[in-house]
């Protein structure tokens, strides 16, 4: 798990200067940031149809959160890993939420999903609180959440296929 992050403490973060934002507000999740072993920060974000997806409603199932944006070359390789995981484990309850941290419109999301034929949801992730909660500096960031409603692993910006597979199995098979 060489690339996994361990979160030690909540940073003192001031305002992000990202202008604009999506229509759906992220749900306040308290002062802490995403931390291995802890429940994930909550959010409620829209997909391209305007449907709001609440992380709180999904907890209890194994979940992968995948943060990306349009100019990340390496991110597009991880999409292949996600598709394989979806094909193998969707039947066992695996839920994949992809979050485009630049996206602020339905068209933005729809074009990305169409380009890669994503069989799972992409959310409008240009949301200040979301970026603070998950400490998004580099993308991709991949967060694995288990059935125990806690974060098992966080990988930022690089993941080996073996680490990805092991992380998926861990959250799917851990009853």
């Amino acid at each position, binding site marked *: 798990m060489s*690339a996994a992050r361990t979160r030690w403490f909540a*940073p003192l973060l*001031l305002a992000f200067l990202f202008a604009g934002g999506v229509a759906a507000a992220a749900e306040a999740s308290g002062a802490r940031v995403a931390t291995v072993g802890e429940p994930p920060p909550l959010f409620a974000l829209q997909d391209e149809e305007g449907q709001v997806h609440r992380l709180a409603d999904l907890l209890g199932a194994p979940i992968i959160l995948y943060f990306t944006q*349009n100019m990340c*070359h390496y991110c*597009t390789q991880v999409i292949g890993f996600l598709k394989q995981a979806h094909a193998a484990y969707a039947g066992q309850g695996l839920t994949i939420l992809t979050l485009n941290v630049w996206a602020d419109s339905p068209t933005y999301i729809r074009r990305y999903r169409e380009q890669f034929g994503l069989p799972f949801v992409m959310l409008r992730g240009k949301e200040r609180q979301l970026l603070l909660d998950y400490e*998004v*500096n580099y993308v991709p960031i991949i967060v694995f959440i288990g059935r125990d409603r806690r974060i098992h692993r966080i990988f930022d*910006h690089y993941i080996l296929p073996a680490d990805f597979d092991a992380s998926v199995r861990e959250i799917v098979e851990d009853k």
Partner: protein
Amino acid sequence: MPWDGRECYPRRTFLRLAGYGGLTLLGASLWPRRGWAAVDPAAVSRMEIEVCYRTEVKGLPRDATRLHLWMPLPPTSPSQEVHDLTVRSSLPYEMREEALFHNRMVHVESGREPASFTVEARYRVVRHRAAAEPVARAEASAPRYLRLGGRMRLTPEIEAFARHAIGGATDPTQVARRVYDALIDTLTYDKQIAGCGTGDTAWIMKSRRGKCSDYHALYATILRGRGIPVRWEEGFPLPYPSAGAVAEGTLAGDCTGAHCWVSFFDPARGWVPVDVSEGDNHPELRDFFFGQLTANRFQISEGRSITLSPAQGGEPLPELAFAYVEADSIPLIYPANYENFVQFRVVGMETA
């Protein structure tokens, strides 16, 4: 000039070069052909580089109606001269300059047809070993050199780090050197990072690692926070002449292939160049990279949080190194919709 469809370097040449076996150094895929004898990089006073910068748009979203492409062009400065610029495009283009940093660029606007096209700029850069560059105080004190934009934030943790590093120093060069040393001693250059960063100083200070944009975002934030103007310079890294006897190659055309450095302003010296991350990566050049830059690079733009000309529909760009393409104000997806190729060939080098 109408584009004749030829590639920068014919593909058969690349196949032949690839047959020599590829290397990877600083994100560059390199095909050794003409070797250099081992040279002290600090002794290189001048490099002459042929560049072919090519962007291929290869597919648009099905509902795209209006497309804009911006390709940055390198500036002329005391550290570099740009010669023999030619632009080739299968679509009409215009030369533009944005208002804040005066970055030059090629701009192409198109409807949804053709769905694929190529824009190519060729030029020859003469790059000099950079040193302090006289400049008027009024010019260096412009707000763009002092403001904390984008994710450059002075958090309490960064303030505490800066206070400890700077101590009682007040002279700009002394302050800048102390911060330079403190960052090199604190941060780790993370070669594992394959993605695209924003230069979020809070993240950098907490994680204590990063790449060039992280080092320099934190460096610029601390100095600007002390009222010292800092100029951000974006460009491309070339191989060190003593590192692998490599004279040509192709740089990764995504966000990972570029390099950046900064200059701080000292009224007694002018713009003083600094490369903190290279100072960390090359301990033998630590003193050199505070006040000088090796010639194995070239600059493509200045500044961060860049609004293009004409203005893009999306957010200001964190840095401007690579061509950027939008359809209906939404960024195209790299590399699915377009790709950049920055090919270089070092054709001359002098030592002094």
